[in-house]
């Protein structure tokens, strides 16, 4: 018999529908929010009960984090967009509830006639105008640009300077010298960081990750089966994703209330291991401000103090961070040196270190790794890995 530990463990408790027609003009967001609100009410629940939102991945539907924001859901910890049709989303939602990724999941499917689906749809000027929803205007605070905007706010609110950001880059480039997989393997100085060409002030060339080519892959199986395989087991101890309610990046509440705080709290509540147990710390550095955010929001230091924390734990001999003289920060060089792996490099480095295979950058006796991936808005993520 096949393994089925989830058998009879998860239930459907609410349903909602707008009904279906082929003449309506409402947006996918309007339809999805109505069905979602109906289903939550049908279940006898409210916005504060929902901590998971799963999309069936229909092309015009709002993204799960957008739907969550439109419904005013805060502290959502599981919100993937799956592949159409519905059962991928249903199975994902089941697994999420069973595993504890979320306690109560909203699954939504909103279908919408695009202009090439029917003559009626083609006659609707709004459907002909259908776009990806990304403005081409220079006056954008969306997506990647938002990190520059909130970096400006960080420096203003806490009275810090760009040197705090620069420490992240100098550390990454020093570590990159020891990683044969890295795109950039030469170190830099603070002066080189500060004199790099400005792109979007306060960010210059060296505040942003390195666009690169490459691939990573991972194999997962049960801990039981892992014991029979060649390498020391690297166990996935606790994980979380998290978003706070904000419909657009420029509407984020503030620097003390965003997705990193949702992840930090949830990960800590799930884990037997925390900062004092961490041997390898791998915070995302797609933009330097993200790393300062993770250092502060995971609790290594207080708000606005990450620059001072990095200086306090700076190892002058190797020109990089060693927390308490021992724990490196992105020993593989992160996205600023290894390249923009979109998170996979941090997970690969965690596994490599916990296997004891990291050669001249190996942390002696490494047993626990803390990976904090993604940024402030829709994609903050945390993972704790350990050896047996």
């Amino acid at each position, binding site marked *: 018999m096949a393994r089925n530990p989830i058998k009879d463990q998860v239930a459907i408790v609410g349903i909602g529908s707008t009904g279906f027609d082929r003449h309506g003009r409402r947006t996918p967001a309007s339809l999805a929010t109505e069905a979602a609100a109906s289903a939550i009410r049908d279940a006898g629940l409210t916005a504060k009960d929902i901590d998971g939102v799963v999309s069936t991945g229909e092309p015009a539907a709002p993204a799960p984090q957008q739907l969550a924001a439109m419904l005013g859901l805060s502290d959502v910890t599981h919100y993937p967009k799956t592949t159409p049709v519905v059962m991928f989303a249903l199975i994902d939602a089941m697994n999420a509830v069973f595993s504890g990724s979320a306690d109560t999941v909203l699954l939504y499917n909103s279908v919408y006639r695009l202009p090439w689906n029917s003559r009626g749809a083609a006659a609707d000027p709004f459907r002909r105008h259908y776009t990806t929803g990304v403005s081409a*205007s220079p006056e954008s605070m969306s997506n990647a640009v938002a990190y520059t905007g909130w970096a400006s706010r960080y420096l203003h609110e806490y009275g810090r300077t760009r040197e705090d950001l620069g420490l992240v880059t100098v550390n990454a480039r020093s570590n990159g010298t020891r990683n044969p997989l890295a795109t950039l393997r030469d170190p830099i100085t603070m002066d080189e960081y500060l004199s790099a060409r400005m792109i*979007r002030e306060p960010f210059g060339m060296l505040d942003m990750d390195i666009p690169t080519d490459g691939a990573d892959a991972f194999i997962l199986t049960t801990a039981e089966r892992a014991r029979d395989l060649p390498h020391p087991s690297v166990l996935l101890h606790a994980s979380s994703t998290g978003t706070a309610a904000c419909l657009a990046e*420029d509407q984020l509440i503030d620097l003390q209330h965003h997705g990193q705080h949702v992840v930090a709290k949830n990960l800590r509540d799930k884990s037997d291991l925390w900062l004092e147990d961490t041997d390898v710390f791998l915070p995302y550095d797609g933009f330097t401000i993200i790393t300062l955010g993770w250092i502060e929001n995971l609790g290594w230091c207080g708000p606005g103090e990450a620059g001072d924390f990095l200086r306090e734990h700076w190892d002058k001999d190797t020109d990089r961070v060693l927390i308490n003289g021992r724990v490196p920060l992105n020993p593989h060089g992160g996205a600023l040196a290894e390249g923009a792996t979109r998170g996979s490099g941090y997970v690969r480095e965690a596994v490599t270190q916990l296997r004891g295979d990291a050669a001249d950058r190996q942390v002696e006796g490494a047993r626990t790794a803390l990976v904090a991936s993604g940024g402030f808005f829709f994609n903050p993520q945390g993972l704790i890995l350990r050896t047996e």
Partner: protein
Amino acid sequence: MPERTTQFTDTDVLERYPSTPIDLDSIELYRGWLEERLLLSRCAECGHWHHPPAPLCPKCWSFDVVPTEVSGQGTIHLLILVHQGAPAPGVDYTEGPHPVATVELVEQVGLRFTSTVIGCPPEDLRIGQSVSLAWVDRGGAPYPVFHLDPSVEAGAVHGS
């Protein structure tokens, strides 16, 4: 849908802002631009403002969301000087960095609108400065921007 308050049709709005993502939930914002009024979404039931436009109020789940004119006054909350970025009529990065500012509006804590700030050398702009709304022509259609305005009352401003 809210009652239309101007003579501009849906097609007018879509044609005048061809590269802007506009749908039935957001079109009143851009219809307002054509008559140089900044209309943001406000819940008719609970009074809560939200932006960008969404079909329902995130606070109370009412679908009775009314595009409502804001004063356009506020303070700079986020500020970027863009040295290289998306092209637009009237924006020339070779002449110097182009400021992009998110302004916290006086109407509600956390209600913000992002545009540029005109009439001031970019290097003199700072987070916390008071601004007012202005309108410029961009590609033949009105476009909302901000200018420094020390007369905006500090007491009326949130988040400075």
